[in-house]
């Protein structure tokens, strides 16, 4: 179903056909502004409103992380691995790979917070969220045409590719 979500000045709509997408960082143009992190937080907040997300609601954990050292920076989130170690290792069956989109998703209802996924993620891209009770990660923004981090990067340092 197509839905429309108003998100400040940014309009997004559901990807009409479930596409396989991946997000890649470009460290040569990343300026380390962390807008990707901010808009990731907004997108995963209850209201999806930037002010409310940061000021009045429980702030969700960012699913993308800017790594920075000196002049080098880049943003990294879950790679949605083809052969995802977290999916194999998950001991509750909460972590799965969507056969249509290739997205690796964690079901918070089934997750028990044992952190086996964190133990085996080579990218450090899975985090303890919701006060440390369940694992959280990039979900490729399934409600949006373009993931929030990519859409809001001012310098195209995050790019989306269809695979």
């Amino acid at each position, binding site marked *: 179903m197509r839905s429309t979500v108003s998100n400040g000045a940014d309009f997004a709509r559901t990807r009409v056909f479930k596409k396989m997408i991946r997000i890649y960082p470009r460290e040569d143009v990343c300026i380390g502004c962390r807008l990707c992190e901010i808009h990731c937080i907004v997108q995963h907040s209850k209201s999806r409103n930037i002010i409310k997300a940061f000021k009045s609601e429980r702030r969700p954990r960012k699913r993308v992380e800017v790594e*920075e050292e000196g002049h080098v920076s880049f943003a990294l989130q879950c790679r949605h691995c083809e052969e995802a170690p977290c999916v*194999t*290792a998950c*001991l509750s*069956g909460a972590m799965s790979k969507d056969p249509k989109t290739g997205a690796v998703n964690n079901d918070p209802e089934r997750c028990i917070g044992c952190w*086996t996924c964190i133990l*085996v993620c080579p990218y*450090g891209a899975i985090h303890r969220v919701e006060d440390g009770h369940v694992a959280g990660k990039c979900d490729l923004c399934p409600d949006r045409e373009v993931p929030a981090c990519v859409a809001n990067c001012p310098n195209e340092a995050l790019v989306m590719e269809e695979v």
Partner: protein
Amino acid sequence: MARDIRYAVIGNSAAGINACEAIRGLDKEGDIAVFSDEHYPAYSRPMISYLVAGKADAKKMLYRSRSFYKSHGIELRSGTRVAKVSAKRHSLTTQTGETLTWDNLLLATGSTPFIPPIPGLDDIDYLTFISWADAKRLSSLLRGNPRVLIVGAGLIGMKAAEALAEGLAQVTVVEKMDRILPLALDDEASRMVSDRFGKAGVKLTNGTSVTSLEAEGSGKTGDGKARAGRATLEDGSTIDFDLLIMAVGVRPRLELATSAGLETNRGILADDYLRTSHRDIFAAGDVAEAPDVVFGEPRVNALWPNAALQGKYAGLNMAGAETPCPGSTSMNSVEFLGLPVLSAGLVNPPDGGYEVISRRDNEGYYRKAVLRDNIIVGMITAGQVDRAGILTSLIQERANVRRFKSALLEESFSHIYFPKAVREGRIFEEKVGTDAARR
């Protein structure tokens, strides 16, 4: 002559299920039959402690959806114990005498609790804690805040202790080694976990063992055994208990491998492809003794993530992929009373030849890395664990970390510390880690 079953899988837990999924990924047609002596669909064995603590229900215990077997075209023969395997005839015989032939067989028979011969133990109706049935039985006996004695402070014993500590029982744990979780953790991490248990009111008695047991007369069960009793320790002191849980360790279930004439040591010997000494028989999980990437020799790593990984590669190879299993080693991830602790590889190196670096801060963060000739071979991370998997992947890759050794202990240690070419290789080619390494 066509055989009865294309793929026979004995064992319905982490290794068996991941094998089935891998087989189905490559072979949509070949029939798969899973044999299990338990009466459940696949469930998350490590979650039995959550079940006892009331943090998971029966539905949450299920490892896969209800429709899993049907949608994957798998015949589940639950409650069917396989009594014998013949390698020569490519056959198995169930306890009811039915004989079936197979093309490929996976032995994913797991392990069984090791029960040490303690004088007096035969008179006691003790419990073990590795199955759903064990958890149900324990739950049914938890009336009136009983005194529970747990023998063994490994993962099984301590998960049982944690489940009971939150208001269900008065718990005492006796451990022969000088600390709890002696294999999974080192002194420091063990101390951090011990502190939590101490605050939760669990009594930890380390560095001693139960030398004898005496059953208490009252409360005898049907077979004349008693649940309650008194344990005597090495120093002569005694502990009275209402329930006794034996959690000393587990042993691979080798009976079928032995009946088939396969080569065994501690476990069933298997190669990088999880193939046993017979070409068409594979072994994975707790029962397998397969090459360990860190130790460089076959090891039994009776741990869930390892079983799932080995099961997956056994399945791929049963379906003809001829793909070696990457990164099999000791991997532990647990949270005890709110403290997450992760470890991988060799965490307690023997003296000589190893470099150990560690960092502990007052916020409850602890990390240790074990290196040999600048190759990272082991790690422990407690407290802030979010990026610890990067270290696990470096251990599995046998990575030389000389150029970023100083950063390994940082909580923020991540790809920015790698040389650019390495970083880009990981991010753009995804050629890292356990599973991705195979492409």
